């Protein structure tokens, strides 16, 4: 079930450095929200706050709230381990587990959470590989190591792995940054498919990519959310002069 993600007055600190300043953003279910902005502006941090990956680093602090559906997931009462199952994340570098086969890479989440047993695992693995548009390419090689696939295939394998544990939200941190144009196109097509069932939030440095795949775009600069709007509108008629400057390569 796709759930809306609502970020309200959210601030975040690494030690004494404030990385996010009072950010508010709503991502609707079955829509793709793109986060754009120069390197180091805080967009990846914002993404990692949604599944609380930032907590892995010591000395962090946050204020404000992030809700998924009705639940405030920034509350200490929420178990981050449980939260991360509900929020799938795809990283910049494809990261299949190198010691596991293609099959096991997808099954690993099911086994971790005891979500399926026996034949049900095989069925679910096939379904997820199909959804990730990888099944036809790997169906005869399920026992090969996942790390032997091409970069683009590895990234789709990671998407299948994330799909297996039935997330409500998909976070993608520059998922095409290390892929060639064909691999990139495949992932973009896949994102459009995923959109029908999930809430997708994607960080990208590629403006064309943002305009191709997203419904809504948010521009982040120095930890502030400068402007949010329907993608076409933000690109064609930005309201804030800083957004316009970034889009015309004047900053960043």
């Amino acid at each position, binding site marked *: 079930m796709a759930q809306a993600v609502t970020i309200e007055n959210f601030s975040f600190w690494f030690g004494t450095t404030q990385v996010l300043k009072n950010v508010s953003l709503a991502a609707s279910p079955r829509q793709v929200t793109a986060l754009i902005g120069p390197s180091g502006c805080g967009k990846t941090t914002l993404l990692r706050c949604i*599944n609380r*990956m930032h907590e*892995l680093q010591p000395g962090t602090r946050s204020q404000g709230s992030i809700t998924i559906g009705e639940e405030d997931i920034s509350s200490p009462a929420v178990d981050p*381990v*449980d*939260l*991360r*199952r*509900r929020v*799938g*994340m795809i*990283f910049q*570098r494809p*990261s299949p*587990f*190198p*010691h596991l086969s293609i099959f096991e890479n997808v099954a*690993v*989440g099911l086994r*971790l*959470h005891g979500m399926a047993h026996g034949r049900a695992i095989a069925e679910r693995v096939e379904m997820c590989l199909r959804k990730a548009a990888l099944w036809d390419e790997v169906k005869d090689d399920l026992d090969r*190591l996942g*790390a032997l696939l091409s970069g683009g295939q590895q990234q789709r394998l*990671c998407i299948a*792995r*994330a799909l297996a*544990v039935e997330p409500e939200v998909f976070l993608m941190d520059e998922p095409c940054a290390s892929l060639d144009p064909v691999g990139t196109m495949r992932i973009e097509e896949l994102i459009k498919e995923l959109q029908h069932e999930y809430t997708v939030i994607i960080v990208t440095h590629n403006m064309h990519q943002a305009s191709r795949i997203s419904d809504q775009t948010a521009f982040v600069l120095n930890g502030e959310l400068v402007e949010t709007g329907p993608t076409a509108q933000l690109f064609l008629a930005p309201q804030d002069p800083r957004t316009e400057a970034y889009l015309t390569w004047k900053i960043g």
Partner: protein
Amino acid sequence: MKNRRQRKVAGLLFESLCVVSAGLATVALSLILYYIFRRGISTIDFGFLTRLPAPVGVEGGGIGNALIGSGIMVGLGTLIAVPICLAAAIYLDQNPDSKIATLARFASRVLAGVPSMVVGLFVFSQLVLRSGQYSALAGGVALAIVMVPVITLSAEEMLKLVPNSQREASIALGATRQQTVFRLILPGAAGGLVVGIMLAVALAAGQTAPVLLTALTSRFWLETLQQPTASLPVLIYHYATSPFADWQAQAWGAALVLVAIILALNVTAQLFLAITNRRT
């Protein structure tokens, strides 16, 4: 032009120096191996490897009990050391900057540099004197102490090789820290861990002082872990320093066996590493 010629000469000189030094290291090992092989090979047959030692002047003495004794004590040492080392390495990997980790790393480096004679003396005073008994058990403990720092430090390096991107992927999938360690990091580093353990086993197999001071030696088969136990290095030490020609010949034979075992462990470890590296 002159400048260029000077540079060429200097470069050539340095390169030759490097080649010669590398050659010297190889030559030294080859000479030792060749010498041991030449002196030892004639002594070795099936009976030598399987029989008990014989008194001076009696034909057909063997090193069977020393082989078994060494095997048992190195095995014991490995059994004691490996769980401790893996647990320590996991801690060091998961909490790399904690005070305990810094202290443990420092202690491991110091322990690795402590002369093995001192390790032997320590176990002698703590186990042998207290129990009033030289034993294979005490020998195993002494070898474990020799192995612990070596395996811990190499295991930490191996665990560190599992990239952060994969750890994050595991956490992002909703795995707990324990699940990440046991399902991802340990299996991912398994090849390197095995290699580190094998090299430590090779190191322990050749240790003389720790077993001499804790297990002493014996001319009989091992029956319990609570009795003095023969080992290859101690047997070599005794036979080589004895005045009897037949024992000295047997010392060369035993040395060849020991060196062959150590060499085999090292070569296997290298091959294993090459194979696991090619897979990924």
